[in-house]
């Protein structure tokens, strides 16, 4: 998947809105779902269906999509939402997306969230002083979406 530099992102965003398509998707394609925390909002895009279904049977079905996929803190939270919201809306509109694959940046967001909830459990193996040896889901493949 192509990496998104900050500048390119801004540019694409601009172009998108100018064409009015970004806005179109945002509304028609329910891109604004990103501003909500209800998992159901994510499946407004059929392409999120698998992820929703697998989440619904995973050990973390009591945890919302955003608690894992979006940074906990305010500012970063909405920035990330806007970014992903746009990227996904953009891809949904223009790309023939066959397989959905998480971006490294979002893998880091995930891991931070795992640690946040499981601070004590991993305090010994993952002292905050050092970066995690790797993403939690390198082993806990099933945590978010079953297997």
């Amino acid at each position, binding site marked *: 998947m192509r990496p998104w530099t900050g500048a390119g992102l801004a540019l694409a965003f601009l172009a998108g809105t100018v064409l009015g398509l970004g806005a179109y998707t945002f509304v028609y394609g329910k891109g604004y779902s990103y501003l909500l925390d209800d998992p159901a909002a994510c499946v407004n895009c*059929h392409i999120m269906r698998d992820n929703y279904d697998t989440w619904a049977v995973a050990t973390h079905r009591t945890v919302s999509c955003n608690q894992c996929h979006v940074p906990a803190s305010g500012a970063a939270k909405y920035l990330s939402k806007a970014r992903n919201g746009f990227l996904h809306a953009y891809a*949904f*509109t223009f790309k023939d997306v*066959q*397989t959905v694959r998480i971006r490294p940046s979002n893998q880091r967001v995930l891991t931070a969230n795992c640690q946040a909830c499981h601070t004590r459990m991993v305090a010994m193996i993952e002292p905050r002083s050092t970066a995690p040896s790797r993403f939690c889901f390198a082993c806990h493949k099933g945590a978010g979406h079953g297997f």
Partner: protein
Amino acid sequence: TIVIRQQESRLTYFRIVDVAEDEPDPAVWGRNFPDQYEAYIKTVRTSELVRYSEFGRYGGSEAFSKLDRHPDLVKVFAGNPFGVDYREEQGHLQALRAVQETKRLGDAKPGTCMTCKSSDVPRLMKRLGAARFYATPMKELIAQNNIKHAISCADCHDSKTMALRLSRPAFAEAMRARGIDVGAASRQEMRTYVCAQCHVEYYFRGATEKYLVFPWSKGLRIENIEAYYDEIKFKDWEHAITKAPMIKIQHPEFELWSSGNHARSGVGCADCHMPYRRVGSVKVTDHWIRSPLMNVQNVCATCHRQSEAELRARILEAQDRTYQLLSQAERAITDAVAAIEKAASEGATDQALAEARALHRRAQIRWDFISAENSMGFHSPQEAVRVLGDAIDRARQAEIAALRAPRPRR
């Protein structure tokens, strides 16, 4: 755009025509299922549509001659029809043309050769019965019943329910011999079984019956298959140079796959050769059946987290290792053939050469189990290399036995 996609998701359900049972013509089925049809007909042109060399090394869809590419094979298959004409296989819609055009067996092909090549077969077998179908010379069979369709929908599907079905008896018979009732197969198993009707080792029972049999009653490993052939003292041909009683192995994809970690994990043929494809909001099975190397992102990434490049590298690495030992085994076999030839020419008796010939048979059936298999070992990487290592051992021992075979004193 989104609008179109949402429409597509409705479209794919209309039934425009009622398809008759065993309908051989894919175009008819295609009216109801355009996505699957349009993908499937690509199998007739895969070689034009993708430049294989950009993806892989050992497969592909161009019918190049394996004999030209590996001249040693002529010696290895001396006396067998495969030494005459033997090509890389292509897409399903080429099957009928290929079986008619190949010089292998020329006009001597029995009806059995048609079994796995045409969607006219299910219909025909019901009418003639399998036994008569097999025993009729292929040319007659074609002429009398104007067989004109290559493999297609009817070979795998029930026209009413579209469920997968087994359209030929040999597989069910062979599984029964293993104590497995294919009638009770799960849907996931069927995603492999439909392929296993054809992508398997076989032989013809009876000089005139030419009855199609899969040699599985003792199991699917090469050791089991060899034991089966030994027990019935079967040989496909006598090697023209060494005079050893030989077995020719054909496309044992199902057998090799079944020993691998993918099979252990329930990953079937269709999972890799017919991955799901998103068409708007619905997922359809990609009917452009071809090498997964051309489609790694859709095929492998569903289950594996690694990048496309990494996954491709794993396939090629497993295949390169297999190819290395395959080549060494081939050389060991040709060395053994030469040694036996020399011993015989120096007057070693049949009795003195018995051991060398037995070893030649054992070495080559193992080598061929991997050579004739079409994934260059990927379907079961470690097993493939194990079998080749064993083949090398026996081929070199055949050479040694020939060197040791006493010559008459001058």
